[in-house]
Structure formats: structure tokens, C-alpha cells
């Protein structure tokens, strides 16, 4: 249909005109940028018409077409890059760049002041396109997931009555967000990275608050914006420092090997820390993580795209872009503390989020905490990479870097799919709720149903494996990828990260890396538990509520993306591992290198050997420990507590049936004691961190504002009012002189005349 036609037409037109892939890449950003206001305005004006609602799915089809074009251009760009590897890097595309700010700088060279730049405005900050392996990987993830989740959203949003007549806003904001993400990864300098970063923040705010009539959603949106704003301010300061050091923010200039190492490391360290704080805010790491769980108030496609698969990767992208600083000549040993900071924050967040996920009952919240935890893994991996780079081990740094980014890829695919699957579950639970009780809902995806039925609460689910085959398979594969079940998806990258973290810990001077390494290992086991718990509570066992008995699976809009991503999750992990994907990301090695040099079969064996039987004995122990606790122990415990066979007469499909069977036969454990403990309560309350923040803000920020408002009105203005009343009073007093009596006036005139004579005589 329309989207597919658009997909094929556009790049062909570009090619015919003579633009190459790099020039056309500007359209990846430009097309969504131009289309989104069209959807918003046309939708607002024509929102009640049939052709808009049925044929264009309230703008969904238009959005999907735009995203299809972007996806197609992305694929073309990737193919070009792989073919002409040598000629890519920083690009100087005339079509795709423009100057934004021009200016000169006044500088003191130690002796005197002088103007730098000119020839009429020598310094420029502008927009340009920069393409390397990192860009392309993130661009592909973004374009692919935006497209699929857009597809999913058409089915999800337009079949729910509560969204009626406002989906045009959804699709417009969705598209603007996509534009922001594409722009961020394609930008060739830090300032434009930041600009698109903020655009994404705006869309996040708008989309979390999509159901704005609910106070909880409006509050969640505000919390998200404010928390990320705090991080953004620090990021901005980091950019200012960076600009002052290099007199440029462009990657081409800053990462020129001849230039990078020539600045003051002290100031650069500060800049890196500031930028990292910005990354923490955006990627929801401790202590700026508080907005992510609340962000689940938004519709599920939003949670899938923004808060799992793309926007939260922005922080990771920024840290990945900072990586070259660590390895630059001249900075050896200067930034190990920054690297350790990154790794520690990663480790702490990973285990904290995993712990809270243990007790979360809302299916989306579990996934939110899982996202937080997995992103923390990637941060820890990047931290290890930076540490290696800065201590003079570039080969290990590249390995860790590649593993971390590979995990980003796997996680994005799997998490996007998991959220979509959970959306499918929630969607069907809603419909079933309508049919069983005829109950009215006043807010989709919310926790307040009419009769307080929560379609997102896993305690109302159970046994859905029999009724939702596609979803259950999707969710199983996604969970396996996140847990790191051997050979599926995330396993390949997770092993890499844990391995490299431990490698750093056992290296010389690596003692401080031990804490993150241990935390990551422990979290692996916890991940196995809580993800399995989620799956079993939802899909295994008997239905725990009436509603769950009547769930079905319908629209193709939802099922197609799920099937697509299931296949991707199941196989791409292994395929990319064989293709040396991590090395391609980390060192720039050719993708086909391994296969070309050894042959396919040998390469597969080599990769398996490298993963399961590494040379270092410590790493082998760590690796196998991780596999055992995450793939065996965790799921086993979860099955004992939450698993169970399906109800009599029900049957799940072959892909998941075995899992349900096993979960039913491992026995049961009663954990009520633990579930009611104080610690569990603390976890339920998110370890009280949110409460502390809110308490502080309510006690300090707001009262100070009110105090100053009072002070301004009464104090500062009080002075003015004092002048007013003072002048009026003195005027009234002086007026007393005009008594109206002739005698007084003659007296005054006489006295005055005498004074004048006296003065004149005095002077003479």
C-alpha cells in the first residue's frame, strides 16, 4: 500500500537525481520534521471525518509512510557504508549541512587580548551529518523500531475508544520524536546532538502526558521533563567547557587525533563528568532514575519506543561518543576515575532496579525496571571500556565497547518487543474486561478502571499462553534475550559485558572495578528471576481473574511487528556474533572478516569457543556462573513460586507449551513471609528515593519561591509604595502653607523680602 510504495520510490528518486546515500540522509531527519505538523493540523481540523479515521487511521498511515522512507534511506546508507567503508567517517555533504551560528571570539593569549576568527566571522556552529559504525547501528535500531512500533501503534491506539479523536496528536508527536532521534544520531557535533536530545525530551513530555486529563499522567510528564532537565543543564555546562577547550563542538575537529589530546585534562575531566550527568538523567540511572517508572503512564507504544528502545539510548550514545577521549594520546591515567564513576553508577542502578522489579505487580513497571537495569549493564560495559582505554589497553577497550553496544542493540530489539507484547496483553485484557462486565473504562492503560480493574496488574492475569499464542512466544523470546539464555539474543552481548567487567576487575589496578563486576553478576541472576516471574505470572498457571479467561488475540497490526521482532530476537544475536558485530563496532573491523578468513563453520566454532571456553580461567568461571544463575537458578525459583500448569482443557502452542509444562512440575514454594517483610515493602515504595526528592522540593524550593514572591510584592515594591505615600504625605504637609488668609501671605512676603535684603547686604 501507500507506505511501501513511498518506501521504494523515494530513494530511487534521490539516486536518479544524483545524490548519494550520504546526501540523501538529510531526508531521514527532514521528512518526519515536515510531515508531523501536517498530521497535527490536518487531524485537528478533519478529525471527525471517515476518510481520516478509517483510511488514514487518524494519521497513522501517513506517519508510517514517513517512517518507511526513513527506514529505507537508512538501509541504503548502511549498504553504502559497508561497501565503501574506507571513504566514510566525517562527511562534508553540501546538501546535508548548514551554518547555524557564526561569530568571533575574544581571547587572551597570555600577553594581550586579540580577536580570533574573523575574515568576517570565523567560528561556526552548524549542522552536518556524521556517519560511522556507531551512528549506523543506532540509526538502524531507531528507524527499524520506530517503523515497527508505529505499525503496532496503529493497531493499539485506533482500536481503543478512549483514544478517539486524539490519535492525530499521538502520531504527530510520535513522528516528531522519530525526527529527534534520527537527528541526534546523525548530527556531527555535540550541540546539535543536544538540540535533538531536547526535542526528544519534549516529545517524551507530550506523550507521557497523552492522557492529560488524568492527574497522575500530567504529574508523570512533568516529573520526566524536570528530572531530565536537571541532567540537561549539566550536559549544557559540559558542552560549554568543551567548546572553550577546543573552540569547536564538531566531532571531526574534537576527535582529530592530533587535536584531542592537546587540552587541559583537568577541565576536560569536568566536562566529561558534566556530560555524564546529563546521560544519567536521560537514561534513567541512579540518582536521576525516578522518572522512568512513572513514565509508564503513557500509552504502551510510547513506553516501547521512547522509554525502552530509543530515547533512553540517548544517554548511552552520548557516553559512547565520549569514548575516544579516554583512549586519546596524552590522557593516560587521567580519566580512570570518570570511567569508574560510569561503571559504578551502572552497577548500582542494575542491582537496585532488579531488586525493585522483584515485587512489581504491574507488567509495564517490571519492564521499566528491567530497562533501567539493562541500560545500567551497558553503562557498566562502557565504563569498563573507558577504563581499559584510559589505562592503556586499547584491545580490551574495543572488546568491551563492542560488547556494550551490541547489548544496546539486543536490548532495544528485545525490549521494544516486550513492551509491544505487554501492550498486546493489556489491550486484550481491556477488551475482555469490557465484554465480561460491560464495564466502562475512564482511562486506557491506567491503573484506575471503572470498578478499579487494573488491566496491567499481573495478579489479574495467568494462563494466557493458551489464549495468546503469538504474544506468549514473543514475550518468551524477549525474556530469554534479556535474561541471557545461551544462544538467544542478549546472551552474546551480556557475556561480553560481564566478562570484560571482571577482566577489568582482575587486571592490575582494577580493584575498584570489582564492585560493579560483582553487582553485574548478581544482577544477572536476579534478572533471570524477575523476568521469568513476569512470564509465568502472565502466561502460565490458571487464570487468576474472570477477565483473564476471556482474553483473545486479534488485529494483525499488533501481531505482525511481534512476529517480526520475535524472529529478529531469536536469530540476530547469533548471526551478528558470528559476523563479528562487536568488533565491527569497537575496532572498525570488517563485518565479514571472520567468515572470509576462516570459513563459515570455523567461524561459528571460534565464536562459540570464545564465548563458552575463554582462555582466562577466571573469566570462564564467571561466564559459567552467570549462565547458571541467570538461565537456570533464576527461572527455576520463579517457576516454583509463580509457575503452574494451564487449566484443564487448555493448551499452549509448541513454542511455549514445554515451558508451561516444566513450570508446573517443579513444585511450589510459599514466599508469603518474605513478601510481607519490611524490605519488600521498601522495594514496593521504590526504596523511598522518590519520596525523599519530593519531600526536599516541597520543603525548600516551593516555600522559597513563595517567600520571594511575598518579598517582592511587599519589600521591594514596599519601598516604592513608601515613596508614593511619603511624597503624598509631604505634599499634604506643605499644602498647609496655603492658608488662604491674606495676613499670612503678607507676613510671608515681608519675611521673605527681609531675608533677601539681609542676603544682599551680607554679600556686599
Amino acid at each position: 500500500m501507500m507506505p511501501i510504495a513511498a518506501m521504494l520510490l523515494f530513494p530511487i528518486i534521490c539516486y536518479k537525481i544524483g545524490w548519494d546515500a550520504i546526501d540523501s540522509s538529510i531526508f531521514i531527519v527532514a521528512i518526519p520534521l515536515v510531515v508531523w505538523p501536517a498530521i497535527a493540523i490536518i487531524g485537528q481540523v478533519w478529525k471527525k471525518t471517515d476518510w481520516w479515521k478509517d483510511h488514514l487511521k487518524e494519521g497513522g498511515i501517513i506517519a508510517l509512510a514517513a517512517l518507511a522512507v526513513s527506514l529505507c534511506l537508512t538501509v541504503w546508507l548502511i549498504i553504502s557504508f559497508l561497501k565503501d567503508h574506507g571513504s566514510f567517517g566525517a562527511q562534508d555533504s553540501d546538501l546535508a549541512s548548514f551554518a547555524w551560528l557564526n561569530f568571533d571570539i575574544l581571547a587572551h593569549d597570555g600577553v594581550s587580548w586579540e580577536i580570533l576568527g574573523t575574515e568576517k566571522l570565523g567560528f561556526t556552529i552548524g549542522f552536518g551529518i556524521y556517519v560511522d559504525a556507531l551512528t549506523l547501528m543506532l540509526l538502524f535500531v531507531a528507524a527499524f523500531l520506530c517503523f515497527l512500533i508505529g505499525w503496532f501503534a496503529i493497531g493499539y491506539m485506533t482500536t481503543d475508544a478512549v483514544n478517539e479523536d486524539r490519535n492525530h496528536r499521538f502520531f504527530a508527536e510520535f513522528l516528531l520524536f522519530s525526527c529527534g532521534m534520527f537527528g541526534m544520531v546523525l548530527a556531527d557535533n555535540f550541540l546539535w546532538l543536544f538540540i535533538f536530545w531536547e526535542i526528544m525530551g519534549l516529545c517524551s513530555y507530550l506523550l507521557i502526558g497523552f492522557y492529560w486529563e488524568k492527574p497522575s499522567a500530567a504529574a508523570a510528564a512533568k516529573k520526566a521533563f524536570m528530572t531530565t532537565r536537571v541532567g540537561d543543564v549539566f550536559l549544557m555546562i559540559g558542552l560549554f567547557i568543551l567548546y572553550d577547550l577546543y573552540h569547536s563542538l564538531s566531532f571531526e575537529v574534537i576527535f582529530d587525533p592530533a587535536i584531542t589530546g592537546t587540552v587541559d585534562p583537568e577541565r576536560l575531566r569536568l566536562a566529561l563528568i558534566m556530560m555524564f550527568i546529563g546521560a544519567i538523567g536521560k537514561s534513567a540511572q541512579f540518582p536521576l532514575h525516578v522518572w522512568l517508572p512513572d513514565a509508564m503512564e503513557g500509552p504502551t507504544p510510547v513506553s516501547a519506543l521512547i522509554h525502552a528502545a530509543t530515547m533512553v539510548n540517548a544517554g548511552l550514545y552520548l557516553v559512547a561518543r565520549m569514548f575516544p577521549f579516554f583512549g586519546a594520546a596524552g590522557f593516560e591515567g587521567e580519566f580512570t576515575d570518570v570511567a569508574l564513576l560510569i561503571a559504578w553508577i551502572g552497577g548500582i542502578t542494575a542491582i537496585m532496579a532488579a531488586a525493585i522489579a522483584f515485587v512489581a505487580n504491574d507488567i509495564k513497571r517490571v519492564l521499566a525496571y528491567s530497562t533501567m537495569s539493562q541500560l545500567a549493564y551497558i553503562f557498566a560495559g562502557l565504563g569498563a571500556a573507558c577504563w581499559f582505554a584510559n589505562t592503556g589497553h586499547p584491545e580490551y577497550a574495543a572488546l568491551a565497547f563492542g560488547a556494550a553496544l551490541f547489548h544496546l542493540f539486543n536490548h532495544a530489539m528485545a525490549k521494544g518487543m516486550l513492551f509491544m507484547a505487554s501492550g498486546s496483553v493489556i489491550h486484550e485484557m481491556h477488551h475482555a474486561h469490557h465484554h465480561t462486565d460491560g464495564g466502562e473504562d475512564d482511562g486506557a492503560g491506567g491503573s484506575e478502571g471503572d470498578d478499579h480493574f487494573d488491566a496491567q496488574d499481573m495478579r489479574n492475569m495467568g494462563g494466557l499462553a493458551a489464549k495468546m499464542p503469538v504474544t506468549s512466544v514473543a514475550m518468551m523470546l524477549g525474556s530469554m534475550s534479556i535474561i541471557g539464555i545461551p544462544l538467544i539474543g542478549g546472551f552474546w552481548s551480556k557475556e561480553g559485558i560481564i566478562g570484560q567487567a571482571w577482566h577489568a576487575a582482575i587486571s592490575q589496578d582494577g580493584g575498584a572495578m570489582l564492585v560493579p563486576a560483582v553487582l553485574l553478576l548478581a544482577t544477572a541472576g536476579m534478572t533471570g528471576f524477575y523476568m521469568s516471574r513476569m512470564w509465568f505470572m502472565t502466561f502460565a498457571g490458571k487464570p487468576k481473574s474472570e477477565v483473564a479467561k476471556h482474553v483473545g488475540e486479534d488485529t494483525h497490526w499488533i501481531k505482525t511487528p511481534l512476529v517480526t521482532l520475535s524472529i529478529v530476537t531469536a536469530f540476530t544475536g547469533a548471526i551478528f556474533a558470528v559476523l563479528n558485530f562487536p568488533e565491527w563496532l569497537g575496532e572498525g573491523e570488517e563485518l565479514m572478516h571472520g567468515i572470509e578468513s576462516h570459513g563459515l563453520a570455523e567461524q561459528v566454532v571460534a565464536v562459540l569457543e570464545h564465548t563458552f571456553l575463554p582462555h582466562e580461567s577466571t573469566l570462564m568461571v564467571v561466564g559459567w556462573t552467570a549462565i547458571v544463575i541467570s538461565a537456570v537458578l533464576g527461572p527455576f525459583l520463579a517457576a516454583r513460586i509463580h509457575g503452574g500448569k494451564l487449566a484443564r482443557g487448555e493448551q499452549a502452542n509448541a513454542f511455549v507449551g514445554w515451558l508451561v509444562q516444566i513450570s508446573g512440575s517443579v513444585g511450589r514454594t510459599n514466599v508469603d513471609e518474605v513478601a510481607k517483610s519490611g524490605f519488600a515493602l521498601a522495594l514496593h515504595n521504590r526504596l523511598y528515593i522518590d519520596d525523599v526528592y519530593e519531600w526536599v522540593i516541597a520543603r525548600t524550593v516551593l516555600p522559597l519561591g513563595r517567600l520571594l514572591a511575598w518579598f517582592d510584592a511587599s519589600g521591594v515594591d514596599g519601598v516604592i509604595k513608601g515613596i508614593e505615600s511619603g511624597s503624598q504625605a509631604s505634599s499634604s504637609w506643605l499644602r498647609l502653607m496655603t492658608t488662604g488668609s491674606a495676613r499670612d501671605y503678607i507676613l510671608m512676603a515681608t519675611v521673605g523680602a527681609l531675608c533677601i535684603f539681609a542676603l544682599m547686604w551680607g554679600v556686599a
Partner: protein
Amino acid sequence: MIGNPLTILTLFPLCASLLLMLVHWAAAEDRQADLSKWIRYINLGVALFMLALATLIGLESFSADLTGIGGWVGLGWHNYLYDNCDQGILRAGGCAVISSIGVSWHVGIDALSYPMVWLTTLLIPISMLVDWDQKRGAYFHSLILMMEGALIGVFVSLDLFMFYVFWELTLIPMFFLILLWGGEDRRYAAQKFFIYTFAASVFMLAGILMMYFHNPVPDWGVGNLTGNSFDLVLMNEQVADSSFISGGMQSLVFLLLLIGFATKMPSVPVHTWLPDAHVEAPTAGSMLLAGVMLKMGAYGFIRLSVTLFPESIIKYQWLLVLLGMVSLVYASWVCLGQTNLKRLVAYSSVSHMGVIFLGVATLQPLGIAGAIFMMFAHGIISPLLFAVAGAFKKHYHTLEIGSMRGLAHHSPWMSAHMMVGWMASLGLPLMAGFVAEVAILIAFWMTFGWLVLLPALTLIITAAYYLWSMQRTIFEGSGEVELPPTMGDDEPRDITWHENVGMMTLGIMAVIFGILPGIFFVMMSGWSSDLISTTFVDLMNSLGVEP
């Protein structure tokens, strides 16, 4: 003199407005209603014509073969367009008006004043459009037109006497706008506004007179009795020769001028006239007040103090930082405690104008260009904010934040514009405000280092109060939306098409100048760079100023 387009821009609106008011006053009772409608159209027509003229002036500069990138920087440093008149050209290029004391009609625009002129011509028709249905519209719109003439007069005058005349002239229509069409407390607000700013301007006049007496012009020509003139170009020439006022006298003049300009901008602590004036003023009045009149203060500061008294700028750099920082931070916190929507926006204006002092204090070309661009950007965004607040008041009869929630339900267009305006004001990238902020903050870091933390953290507070006010007006209100008691029996409705077009134009402008700031930024940058390189660099070297 008539042929000079700047003269037309200044005098034509003044004369036209007076004429229109006269016509309406002199007309018969029964004809007045009809006439009122036509007069409004004529006012709008004249305003749009002025906009076209101003745009053409800019394009002419662009196409003229002047040095620099694309010719925009032809409107550069001391490179005034149109500084001549037909007969009796004086030495500096003006035409004699009051020869005996050395007053001339000398108009010209350069890179500093052109964006302001264009901004004024843009805002006048928009504010007329947004407040189209005001009662006694003939006088209302004519007064707005009169404001246009006076405002442009301020920006184009290169003679300080005329500058002061126009400066005070702007007060008169605004006074009447507030007094006759304002809110409940309008009398107090109008009086306070007039007397406060007028009193401050008197200090400025004292400074101007002192400058006058140090500006000799031996070859004025016919009729000059004092041997001095008010001409700004001559004063600039003296500065270039280092023969203008210096030492203690310069500090005194600088401070006198500062009092006047700081009150206009406004800067804390002389800002308290602004909240009252804004809350009580009609929508169009607030838009012009915030959009252009405040910029007069900043413009005057840069035009007079920065270019003519560089030593004082260097000496009082700390004072500028202090005033700017206090305005920025203090006003932001005060915003947090406001419950009146228009007062909140008024204080946010104070806060943003404080940033201009910070930009100038950096003494970087980027910082000064950022300050000038902030004048422009704020001049686009602030009227949008006041248009929204005014529409809110008009349709819901209240300005209390939180008294009307779930606005998106009844007034989706108003909510959309509110969101755009609010986001632009808090510095969202790809909108004009961000450009100015980034430019100034980068320059601020370069000059003052870690002190930049204070303005940067204030950005968080800014976001906080805007988001808070948005949440309690546009959002929430689940279930049945409760209308505020002030509504009475009125049905809630969305904005009229006049208001919509006006707001949308401003919103689009904010985005255009956010994505392509170079349209004006290049000329502002060139001007600042030339200013620094010709005036400040040598001075800083000779004074031994350390970084």
C-alpha cells in the same frame, strides 16, 4: 528628508494615527460605529504597509554590494543605512531641526537597530489583530499605531534629543491604553508605570545633557549658538579619538544612564512597575510593552553606554553581572510563587531581560551578539505568552492558575499555543530563545567560568514554573471540567481566528528564528565583533585587564 524610508517609518504612523483619531472624534454620533470599523482596517493596513517597508529595507541591505557575508553585515558597525537628507545636510549627515541648540533630524539603522525596527513593525499588526474586538476600537488601534511611530523613532534616532523625545513619547499611548482599556486596578497601574519610568528617564536626561555639553561641533553651520550638538555619530567619532568624556565624569554619566535603562529593561531592583502594568494592561498593550518597550532599555544601553563608554563597561563589569544575575535568579524564584498567570509571565520577562546584562558583561562578541539576539527572540516569544494569557483572561474571566483546569478540553488551539509559547520561553532548542541562551552562556563560561552554574541552574527553575502552570491549566481536569465561578453563565470556547492567526504567526517566527537564527545573528555578530575589535581590544590591552 521625506524620501528617506526611515523617516516615513517614524512619522507616517504618528501622523496617520492622530489623523484617524481626529476624524473619529469629529464625526457625527450615528456615523461613528461604522467609521470605527473602517478606521480599524486602515490602522491594520498602515501597520502591514510599515512591515512591508521594513522588510524591503532589510532586503535592500542584503542585495547592496556591501562587504561581508551575503551583505547582511552591510548593516554593520557604524555603517548606517540612509543617513542623509535632501537639503541642508549637516556634517554628520542629519538635517537641522533646532539649530540653535544643535538638534538635528538624523536617522539611520545599523545591525543593532534594524532587527528591533523589523520586530516593531511585525508586532504592531499582530497585536492589533489579537485584540481586534476591543471596544472603542478606533482610538485603541490608533493609539497602537502611534506607539509604532514612537518606538521606531527611538530605534532609528541618531540624535540624542530626538531619541529622548521619542523615548518619552512612547509612554503616552501606553499610559492611555492601560488607563482606558485595562483591568480593575488600571488607574494605579497606569500612574505607577508612567511616573516610575518617567522619573528614571529624567536621570537619563541628565546624563544625555552632560554628554551634550561634551560634544562640540565647531562647524555646525547656520544658527548654532551653544557650539554643541546632540549628534550620536559625532560622539562616536570622539570615542574613536579617545577624546570623549572620561574618568570620574564618565562613571557619573554611565550610572545616570544606567538608572534610566535599568528601569526600562527592567532590572531588579527597579522592576516593580512591570508586574502591575502588565497585569492591568489590555492584551495588545502587554504584548507591545513586553515585546518592544522593554527592549528600548536594552537597546539604549547598548547603543549609548556600551559604545560610548567602554571604560565604564570594563570598570563596572561586576555591576552588570550583579544586576543581570539578580534579575535572572531572583525573578525566576519569584515566578515560582505566583498564582496569577500574567504576573508569572511578567516576572519571567524580568528574568529573561537580566540575561542581556550578562551577555554584555562577557565582553565577548558571541555574548554581545547573544544579548542582542535575546532582545529579538524575547521580543517574539513574550508577546506570544501575553497573547495567550490575555486570551485566557478574555475567555475564562480569570487569571488565577489552577482555577480553570483541563483547558485542552474546551480550547485546544489555545492550549497548543500556550504549550508552544511556554516551551519557547523556557529555552527549548529549535526555538529562538535557545539560540540566545546558548550564545550567552557559552560566552559567560569563557569569561566567568564556574559562575555560569547559577544561570544554568536557573534554567531548571524556569522549566519548573512553566511546567507547573501548564499542568494546572492545560492538563488535569479529569472527568467533568469544573468552570471557574468567574465564568458566570458563559460557555467556554476556543480562541477566535484573529487571536489564532496572531499567535500562530508568532509561534512560526519563533521556530524559524530558532532553526535559522543566521538571518539576523550574522549581522548582530558582525556588529559585536567590530565593536569589540575597534573599541574594546585596545582599551583592555592598555588597561591591563586580565582574563
